[in-house]
Every structure is written in C-alpha cells, then in structure tokens.
C-alpha cells in the first residue's frame, strides 16, 4: 500500500524555517492537495521528499523508507515533478524516456510500449527531436511521461499544470484523475483551488512553514462555503432595493446592473434571494461569487486555527 509520511519534518536556511515540524501521514490511494501562498513551504516539503534538500530535523518517508537515509530505496516507487524539471537538451524525447526507464529497471519492451502509450495519452511532441528544440510545454509533457513511465505508486507534484496552456492542463488534469482511480497516492501542490477540488480528496493548508489545517476537500468546502452571490440584471436596479431583500446581509454594486450580495450561505436563502431579484428586474446571470484560494486562505488565517 503506498504511503507518505512526514515526521516533524523541518528545514531551516540559516535562521529562517522554510518548513517547521510538519507532520502528516497518508496511506493508500488518493490525492492530497498541498495549498498555500508563495513561500509557504510547499516546494520545500516536496524537495525534502525527493531528496533534493536534506531535512534539518525530522524525517520524510515514502512507502516506509526514509528518503534522506537511502534515496535510492526511498524514491524507487515514486515519481516526482518538482519545480521545473528539464530533460537534457542533447537527448531526444525518446532517449530521455529510455534513460529514465533504464534507471528504473524497465525492460526495453516496457519502455517502448509505455512510451507509445504516453505519447498518445499526453500528446507528446515528436520523440526523435532533441528536447532542446521543444517548447517549454512540450518538454514538461515529456518530463511528466518520464515520471509516469515506471508506474510509481506515489506521485509528488509541484504545481503540475503550471506553465501549460489550457488544453495541456485538461490533459494533465484528466490523467491525474485517472491515476487517482488506479489507487496511486498523489501529493500535489497548487495555487488553483478549482484544480485541487477536481482532483484531490484531502487538503493540507500551509503557511510560513507551518501546517495550518488538514482535512478532506468536502469538509474544507463546508468550512469555506461560498457566502456571496453575483447577480446581473437586464437593466439597472437600485442598490437599496437589493439591500432590503430578506436574507441579504450586504449588497455591493459592481456596475449599474451588476451586484454582489452577501448571504448566510444556506440553499433556501439562495433560492429566496433569486426569486426576490427576479421580481425586481429580469435576471441574466445569478452565480456564486468565486472563492479564490487567497480568500479561503485569508479566512483560515483570520480564524487562527491551530495546526492539525
């Protein structure tokens, strides 16, 4: 069963603690979103798990093996994508995949078959071109294929869709959803709450090197439920008439016919507010105000929740 464990994992650079006694354990298949603002300690954590950094204190264990003590054993059944990995420019895409496959003990047939499979699934660029001649997105897809070639049970991903165009993002998102369904254990950092919501079951919030909250996406969603609505009318409406609607806590004009309404987040209130709006003027759009990661994160900080 794949597993991932941080035991009091700490990384200090001089006196600055990039990661401060982080502890968590996950076993079995599933996807964990690792969320936090820039500089929170997400990449540091992933670098500690992949042996790119050495912990100042604590341990990072993958499948029960401590990475710092024995990187080869620890990383054997692990695929990773940390920061912006680049293939060697003098090698072709096919050679890059073959080299990684050989390092991981795959046979020539396995390398050939899996290369062909990922070439289709990830829409890889021509594999006989040297990678130095490919675009950033094309090189990243080759690196992702290299990561997946040995079909590792644990995947460590640092903003895996960063730098990709929308079509490439969809390819990677679908791939990750498929991998999660194959009982792989995925830890992925991201700034994109929407992406995390679609892929992950669990979420870890981190800031300033400390883990603030660990919970399921479902519980996080309940905790940070959307309590604002964006309404667009077919014609201008008085702000005061919206503020007086029952259930609306605060109304803000975003334009003559466009408003944001705060409410208690309950479904019944939402239905009542929609009906009241329709009585004022034809409604052309009625949607939940988007909740960004930053919004959720700021609210979490304001709550001052203890590390869990």
């Amino acid at each position, binding site marked *: 069963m794949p597993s991932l464990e941080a035991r009091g994992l700490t990384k200090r650079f001089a006196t600055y603690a990039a990661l401060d006694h982080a502890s968590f354990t996950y076993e079995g298949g599933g996807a964990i979103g690792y969320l936090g603002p820039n500089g929170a300690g997400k990449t540091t954590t992933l*670098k500690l798990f*992949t*042996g*790119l*950094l*050495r912990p100042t204190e604590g341990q990072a264990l993958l499948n029960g093996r401590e990475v710092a003590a024995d*990187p*080869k*054993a*620890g*990383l*054997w059944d*692990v695929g*990773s994508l*940390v*920061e*912006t*990995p*680049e*293939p*060697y420019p*003098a*090698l072709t895409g096919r*050679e890059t995949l073959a*080299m*990684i496959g*050989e*390092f*991981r*003990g795959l046979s020539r047939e396995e390398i050939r078959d899996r290369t062909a499979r990922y070439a289709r699934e990830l829409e890889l660029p021509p594999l006989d071109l*040297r990678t130095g001649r490919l675009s950033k997105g094309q090189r990243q897809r080759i*690196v992702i294929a*290299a990561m997946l070639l040995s079909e590792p049970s644990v995947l460590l991903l640092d903003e895996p869709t960063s730098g990709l165009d929308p079509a490439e993002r969809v390819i990677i998102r679908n791939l990750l959803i498929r991998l999660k369904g194959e009982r792989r254990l995925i830890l992925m950092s991201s700034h994109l709450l929407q992406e995390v919501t679609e892929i992950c079951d669990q979420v870890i919030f981190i800031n300033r090197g400390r883990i603030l909250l660990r919970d399921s996406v479902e519980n996080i969603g309940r905790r940070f439920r959307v309590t604002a609505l964006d309404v667009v009318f077919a014609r201008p409406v008085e702000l005061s008439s919206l503020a007086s609607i029952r259930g609306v806590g605060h109304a803000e004009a975003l334009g003559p016919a466009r408003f944001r309404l705060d409410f208690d987040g309950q479904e019944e209130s939402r239905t009542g507010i929609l009906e009241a709006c329709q009585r004022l003027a034809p409604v052309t759009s009625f949607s939940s105000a988007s909740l960004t990661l930053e919004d959720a994160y700021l609210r979490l900080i304001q709550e001052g929740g203890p590390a869990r």
Partner: protein
Amino acid sequence: MIGDRAQFQTAFRYQLRSYLRTWRFLGLLIFVAVVSGAILAVQLHRGVDLVTANYPTASDYLSGYLSVLADAVIVIGAFLGGDALAIDLSGGAGYLMLSQPVRRRTLLAGRYVAAVVAGFALGMVYYLFAALAVQYFYGTIPVAILGSIGEAFLFLLAVLAVAFFFSSFFRNPTVSIVAAILILLLGFPILTAVGTLTGTEPWFSLDYGSQSITSILATNFTHESTTHVGGRGGLSLTLYAYAPYPWEGALIMAVYFAVFFSLSFVIYRFKEVRG
C-alpha cells in the same frame, strides 16, 4: 530494485552520447586537430634536416612535439568535466535526474568515466598526429610513446577530477568551467614557478606532475639542474629547473585524482538543489 552497476552503465552511456552530440565535443576535436596539425605543418615546412638537427633522437622529437599536450588536456578536461555535475545543481535537469532512484555516486562515476573516454579519444588524436610526424621524420615510433600515453592518461584523470570538483562546488556550469580552466592553466603553473624560483621541487603542483608526459621521453633526463646568472660584482641569480621522474609525475597525478575525485564525490553527494 535494479543494481548500481546497471545504473552506472546507463549514466555512462547517455553522458557519452550527450558529449558526442554537442558542438563542444566537435569544437574540442577541431581544437586538438588544429593545434597538433599546426605543429606538424610548421615542421614539415622546416624540412627533415632541420628538424632532425634540433632533435637528435625520435624520442626527443616526440618530447618536444608533446610539450603543449598538457595544455590541450586541460582545455579538454575543463570543458568535459566543468559542467558535468553543475548542470544538475543549477536546477532544471537536476530536478529531473536527482529525484530519480539513483545514487549520486553512481551518476558521478558514470559521467566521470564517460568524460574520461571522450577526453582520451580527443587526446589520442594529438598522439596520432605526433606518431605520424615522428614516423615521417625518423622512420620509427619510439616505444616510449606508450609510457607518455600512460602519463597523459593519468593527467587526464587528474584534470577531470579537478574539473568535477569545481562542477560539484559551483551551481553555475559556466562559472565551473571558467574556474577549472583558470586554476589548471594559471594557478598550478604559478605554483610550479614559485617552487622553481625558490629552489624547491614543486612536487605539490599538478602542473609539475604533468611534465612527466614529456620527461618520460627525454633521452638525457635530468631531474634537477641549476644555472647561475650574473656575478662579478653585479647581481647574481641562481635558476633552478626540475623535471619529475616518471614515477614521481605519475604519483603526483594519481594523488590529485584521488583527492579531487573524493572531494567531488562528497560534495555532490550532500549538495542540495535549491534552485
């Protein structure tokens, strides 16, 4: 889990392939061919009589021909080894390679041997020109050339170890290459010169050890000699000249190889990829 030996072979094979594909290798090949070819061309222009008058034996001629080989080996070693590890430590490729289940010592060893093979092949081009020249002028190729090749091979090992050391130390591949060239091409000769001027045999300098590449060929080998300049009321100066015994040069180069290869191994093993 696959063994270290198989992973070593993989590291070696792909590193060698990378070397052979780059413009750098082709540039070094042209560099070596131009340097050794130019020497041959000049001597062909001078003619057989003049050349054989300057060098009484084929071995002496060969010793003179190979006098710039050490500098060529330095350039070769610095360019092949200077970025071999730094390319990983600067990020990019390192994020892909150093997160693989491969011990860094395995990667280092595979890359080092690939650099040795590529560097030796380039060095042999120089020896090929030298052999052609000595055959043309003297009608024979001295057997001692094999000893010189052995000494040059040891020097290549040492130079690459120094270059790998800088490559493990610096995160910027260009800085690593430049540092290796500066130290090898300027630093060590200065060390040798200081020893020579003060009457101390510079056994501590790699540059001095490399002189065994040619001293092994000399027919009238002199380990130490002094020359007095001036006198008669004016300033007098004693100049010292040293040449390493072949075994001594080999030992100096072997020690440099062992020390710097070990240092590069330790640094690369523990170096973090911070990006």
